[in-house]
């Protein structure tokens, strides 16, 4: 039995995140539009998305499937095939414009300044190459070094992401790693070139909770060490509460609420965010009935007019003159707090939340 047998568990204290000072944005997305022409019509996957992330800060993008969270993040890395996707707007990373960047420039940018961790490590690692090989390839694409130096770097990275015995592990194939270990290896690969921007697309969704906890810790630790800006895509609001500074809630291709995590999850202002909170069973207290949002998310082929959420919204009758069905609300501050914005016509949403929604939260 190892040294862990002390009778006390090894615990990690969950410290509420300290918000980093408001710095200059490293990633700045302005009015991003991504559309895919298909045989059935134009799929408007992302419509007018704007946000920014400074270094050392984590932005969580939350939404259901088809809300455009992955599509918009893939655009940030220039991963869309330009023959298939129509992209407009601006994505600036460290001052460089990514939209319309040449393939050659993209090659240097991707994996260098910006890197991505994918949801499924099983399908994102090549089964025919060793883990070490794949990390080395990424390193040597961006650095003119010998294989030997690159291998040392790979071993160093595997050690940093907490893989035991990295010198032996570096020559193993993905199938010899467990799910959590594979995800660590992928994080090592993403971070091998010290990226300033890390995009994590549902990095823990395929993992068990105990492994998820380890990976979340790892991403936070590494962010502190590397000082990167992190965009964290997830649908799990519990994870968001733990890891993010800011949150962007997406629905049908647009941002509907944006602001600091404790504000948005503590007292959201948009009926969709209310619905999400009312759909999650609580871990403490007497179980309360859930109040799910009726209906299902709209097809991106035919996004509803006005506010895209209006067909599912229980508060639309309180807004005069059919605004909800005809006028698309802007993403602006709706209360005295100017640090947060939401896209909803409802008057005094903070009061509605407090008096009507809060009492029935699970």
């Amino acid at each position, binding site marked *: 039995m190892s040294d*862990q047998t002390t009778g006390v568990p*090894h615990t990690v204290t*969950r410290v509420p995140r300290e918000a980093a000072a408001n710095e200059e944005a490293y990633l700045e997305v302005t009015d991003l539009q991504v559309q895919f022409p298909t045989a059935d019509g134009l799929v408007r996957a992302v419509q007018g998305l704007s946000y920014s992330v400074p270094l050392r800060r984590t932005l969580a993008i939350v939404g259901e499937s088809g809300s455009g969270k992955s599509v918009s993040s893939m655009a940030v890395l220039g991963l869309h095939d330009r023959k298939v996707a129509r992209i407009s707007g601006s994505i600036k990373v460290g001052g460089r414009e990514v939209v319309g960047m040449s393939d050659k420039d993209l090659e240097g940018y991707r994996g260098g300044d910006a890197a991505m961790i994918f949801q499924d490590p099983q399908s994102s690692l090549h089964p025919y190459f060793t883990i070490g090989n794949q990390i080395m390839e990424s390193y040597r694409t961006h650095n003119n070094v010998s294989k030997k130096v690159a291998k040392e770097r790979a071993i160093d990275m595997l050690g940093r992401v907490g893989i035991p015995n990295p010198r032996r592990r570096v020559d193993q194939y993905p199938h010899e790693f467990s799910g959590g270990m594979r995800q660590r290896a992928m994080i090592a690969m993403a971070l091998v070139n010290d990226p300033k921007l890390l995009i994590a697309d549902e990095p823990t969704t395929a993992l068990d909770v105990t492994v998820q906890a380890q990976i979340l810790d790892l991403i936070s630790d590494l962010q502190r060490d590397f000082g990167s800006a992190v965009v964290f895509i997830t649908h799990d609001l519990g994870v968001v*509460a733990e890891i993010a500074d800011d949150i962007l809630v997406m629905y049908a291709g647009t941002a509907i609420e944006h602001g600091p995590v404790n504000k948005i999850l503590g007292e959201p202002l948009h009926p969709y965010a209310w619905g999400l909170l009312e759909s999650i069973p609580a871990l403490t207290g007497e179980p309360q009935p859930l109040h799910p949002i009726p209906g299902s998310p709209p097809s991106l082929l035919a996004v509803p007019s006005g506010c895209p959420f209006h067909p599912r919204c229980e508060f639309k009758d309180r807004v005069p003159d059919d605004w909800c069905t005809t006028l698309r609300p802007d993403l602006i501050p709706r209360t005295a707090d100017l640090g947060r914005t939401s896209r909803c016509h409802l008057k005094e949403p903070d009061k509605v939340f407090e008096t009507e929604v809060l009492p029935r939260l699970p």
Partner: protein
Amino acid sequence: MTADTTTAKSGIRSVPGAPLLELDNVKMHFKTKGEGFLARRTQWVQAVDGVDLTVRPGETIGLVGESGCGKSTTARLITRLLEPTAGEIRYQGVDIAHMSERQLRPYRREIQLIFQDPYSSLNPRHTVGTIVGTALRTHGLVAKSGELSRVQELLEVVGLNPEHYNRYPHEFSGGQRQRIGIARALAARPKIIVADEPVSALDVSIQAQVMNLLENLRAELGIAFVFIAHDLGVVRHFCDRVAVMYLGRVVEEGPRDALYEKPQHPYTQALLSAVPDIGVVRGVPPKNRIRLVGDVPSPVDPPSGCRFRTRCWKAQDICATEDPALIERAPAQRVACHFAEPPTESILAETA
């Protein structure tokens, strides 16, 4: 056992007073080939290794644990899609573990399964009417003339438009497909439904809709559920009792509140501490999280004695030599650990 059974019209035998479903030391070992020079030696994956479980009529029991702990294999054993290598599966007191397909037929009707993936569990070339109607026809539940109206009735029960009986699965969204799967299970008028991760593949808002549907069905029809999920919040919401599995065994089992508030097995404590809690933004003080070392050992060669000992902070010599039995440590709460105790200060310590 055979002496005092009664036989119902459906052909189902039962022992009066026996629980609805009882698993007694059920084992499922799969044969597999070793790797490399071991290739000629057969090995056994001990997917489920001695599970005891009791389900009473109308009760919901949750089965939680991480991937590879044997929860899905248990589901397949209860529904007898697999034949256990050892142990008894008693349905109303009668062992169905080794029954022939012919003998099983009436039991199949009463024990139904809902699958995780609403995309691969429905035949894409059959209409919804055929999918739900097949269950009715197989068990001879309605006359041919009444089949359509019964299908429509079932679609309405699960919240689908009854006029959509002639549509194909691809015309429905994920949440609606899961409702079709539920309608198919209900068609047989089961007494027990085994739901294997029924909401895991769904978005949060849709997940809550399906959970509410299952809850209504439980309340109205009095169906017992074996509810398998890895989401501890979902299980807490739905289940009366919860069993925690680790590496093919049940390590702790008890009433919901006892298990969530006073877990006694170190693994249950670690599992619960790892769940991210959205409550922190609403002022719930964050709890310390127990960090487990290492990975789950291979079920081919599980550790001797207690299977959790390789990752346990309480492990002593006795844990390697003696397999802890699942014994009652608190009212109705059974724990398989030599050092079971409610969480201590050091685990639940809240940061000031």
